[in-house]
């Protein structure tokens, strides 16, 4: 007796047990038996995509001229900041992914107020420190700056010999609006540095109890700031958010140690607001929304229920068809199909694959393809039986002859999946991506179950049931 099918059967049973364990749990925790520390602690609940649970998906793009290249560092920092910002808004489970070269995909599951989120994300944009010379611009004035036009900040890094270190570096701001000369031709101001140079921003109280904003700079910007403030004492360094002036403090003295304060007649509220803008407004690149999709939560729930129901119906129909047409092998193929479904679900949970509606459709489609592999084999099996081979010979021949067509045809499907994935990835089209990923996984798993599981089941059953004399069981 050939032992190999039994070894395979044991392996398959282990796989089934493992798959069942994963499929039925939401959290896996494995403790080290010696010190009770957790070795593995993983959330394996099914992740539903936005189209199924409702929410907002947006595609953000660097708002720079098309010929400007956006560095991936800048894009990553912007992603990080936007993520922090949306977490600060109280939106949980935000997913933000960089889609090079100049986009970020942001997903906000389950939110009911997409307008508010988008507005707040758009509101806080690019923070610039702008050299306006001696001109004190009113808050709210929209200006033009040279940032982004030449691709990067080109700071005036002129060393200044008259620079003298002062113990207390202070820049005072006149928060109250002062008179501004009438606008003439549009002036393009020079951007000294952007908000990325800021390290910490806090609201403090000065000696006389007035509110002020203390800030420190990152070490790589200290020298630049020291040089600039040293050479521009008594001039204005305007704080500009999204090309709109929010404050026009003047430089009282050079700031050489990278730490300074902005003073003025701030109320606590005004000081806090400015601090928040400084802290969270420091995107390295300006960002605009180029695409947004909102799905209401009710639609998503309905879709899940409906497609699950449809999937179950489809599954039952396949079972009936396979049993009627292919009899005993058909029944075994159905068992293999159940193994297939459990294994795929396990992989979806482990990878993890975010399930979207087309993803579910892709999965159901892959069930169809899994059946196809079985059908190819069974048709071959029948042929070999008709040609007068013994059952075991027929099984092995059926498999080896069906294999090239299964391999080649499924590989072609995998190629299409790969191209779809590439297409979906470029646009954050998570629907297309989800479909290709589930279909590709399904195809791979179906290859495995058709080749090893169905075959093992057949061998084992034939060994034990002595049914060689019942050709009708094979639908002959």
């Amino acid at each position, binding site marked *: 007796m050939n032992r190999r099918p039994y070894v395979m059967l044991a392996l398959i049973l282990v796989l089934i047990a493992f798959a069942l364990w994963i499929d039925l749990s939401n959290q896996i925790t494995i403790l080290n038996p010696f010190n009770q520390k957790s070795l593995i602690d993983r959330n394996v609940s099914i992740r539903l995509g936005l189209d199924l649970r409702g929410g907002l998906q947006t595609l953000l793009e660097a708002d720079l001229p098309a010929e400007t290249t956006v560095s991936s560092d800048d894009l990553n920092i912007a992603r990080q900041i936007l993520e922090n910002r949306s977490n600060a808004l109280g939106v949980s489970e935000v997913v933000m992914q960089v889609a090079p070269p100049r986009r970020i995909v942001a997903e906000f599951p389950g939110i009911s107020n997409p307008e508010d989120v988008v507005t707040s994300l758009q509101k806080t944009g690019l923070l610039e420190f702008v050299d306006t010379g001696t001109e004190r611009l009113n808050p709210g004035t929209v200006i033009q700056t040279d940032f982004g036009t030449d691709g990067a900040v080109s700071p005036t890094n002129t060393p200044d010999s008259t620079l003298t270190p002062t113990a207390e570096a202070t820049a005072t701001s006149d928060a109250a609006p002062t008179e501004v000369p009438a606008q003439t031709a549009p002036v393009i101001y020079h951007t000294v540095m952007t908000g990325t140079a800021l390290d910490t921003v806090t609201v403090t109280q000065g000696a006389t109890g007035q509110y002020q904003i203390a800030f420190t700079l990152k070490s790589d910007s200290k020298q630049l700031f020291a040089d600039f403030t040293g050479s521009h004492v008594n001039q204005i360094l305007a704080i500009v958010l999204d090309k709109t002036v929010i404050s026009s403090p003047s430089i009282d003295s050079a700031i050489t140690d990278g730490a300074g304060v902005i003073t003025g007649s701030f109320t606590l509220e005004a000081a806090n607001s400015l601090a928040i803008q400084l802290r969270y407004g420091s995107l390295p690149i300006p960002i605009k929304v180029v*695409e947004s999709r*909102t*799905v209401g939560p009710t639609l998503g729930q309905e*879709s899940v229920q409906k497609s699950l129901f449809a999937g179950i119906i489809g599954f039952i129909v396949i079972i009936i068809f396979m049993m009627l047409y292919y009899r005993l092998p058909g029944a075994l193929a159905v068992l293999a199909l159940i193994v297939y479904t459990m294994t795929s679900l396990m992989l979806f949970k482990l990878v993890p694959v975010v399930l979207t*509606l*087309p993803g579910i459709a892709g999965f159901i489609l892959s069930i*169809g393809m899994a059946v196809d592999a079985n059908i190819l084999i069974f048709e071959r099996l029948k042929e070999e039986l008709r040609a007068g081979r013994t059952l075991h010979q027929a099984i092995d021949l059926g498999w080896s002859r069906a294999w090239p067509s299964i391999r080649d045809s499924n*590989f072609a499907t995998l190629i299409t999946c790969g191209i779809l994935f590439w297409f979906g990835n470029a646009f954050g089209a998570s629907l297309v991506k989800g479909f290709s990923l589930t279909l590709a996984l399904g195809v791979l798993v179906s290859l495995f179950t058709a080749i090893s599981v169905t075959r093992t089941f057949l061998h084992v059953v034939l060994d034990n049931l002595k049914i060689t004399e019942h050709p009708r069981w094979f639908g002959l």
Partner: protein
Amino acid sequence: MNIIKNRYIYFGISLLVIIPGIIALIIWQLPLGIDFTGGSLLEIRFDTGTPLSSEQVAGIYADNSTPGASIADPIIQPLGTDSLSIRSKVMTDATKSEIVTSIQELQGGAVTVLHFTQVSAAVGKEVATRAAGAVALAALAILIYISYAFRGVQHAIRYGTAAIIAMLHDVLVVVGFEAIAGHFWGWEADSLFLTALLTVIGFSVHDSIVVFDRIRENSNHYKKISYKTLVNHSIVQTLDRSINTQLTVMLTLLALALFGGSTILHFVVILLVGVFSGTYSSIFNAAPILVVWENKEWLAWFKRKPSVAAE
């Protein structure tokens, strides 16, 4: 069963299906969704069950339209019995809130926003370009793969080409169907349509390969018989499998179409049409093309002799 003998009849049936689609494409064009053109799509459900009329909604859009950001003349379509799908140019979020509030006020009952999608024109254009690239790339990759997989057979490139022709057949059937459905039911080709199309491509090639594989195998066993007989024999041998596979896939798709809800109906119907066409083309187009090529039958097409079909 002699499929090869009647090959020109089957080619004719394909043309009968494809030509109306091509005419529809020329006259009505492929109705591209906002995924490819840019714009805004708002789907609203009226909780009372009775939606506003198209004129009322159009009026609200006109009221919120400004010369700088025109959203007048939206395309409004019913979605089931209680919902509307409204397509317009891109609007601001504030405008959208305004519109939803106005609709709610005019209707006098609560409304639910099912979907709200906005795509900028630039992104839409890029997606469209890239989608065309994806289809071309898929075709090329498959051609290369088949030529490689059949490298042991004489004229391996013919198999790849025949599979691509059958694939183009299915693409034309699906795109033509979409154009007709777009005209009569207001369907729009979105990125899900593209997903369905690429799946159909994969399926079509999948089917063709199964038939070709049999030809590849049989050509090693039967050296004496004519190529025509060999191809026909291979088609008939794989017929059971082709039909059964198609049946199971179509049954699952049918279940999805009937019970899967309106969100994926469009997607599933396109797949149904494409899978059916894919099986047809692999049996009745892809393999017969090999015979046409082997016999260089096009030489006879332009001669007077009506011998080809009767052969």
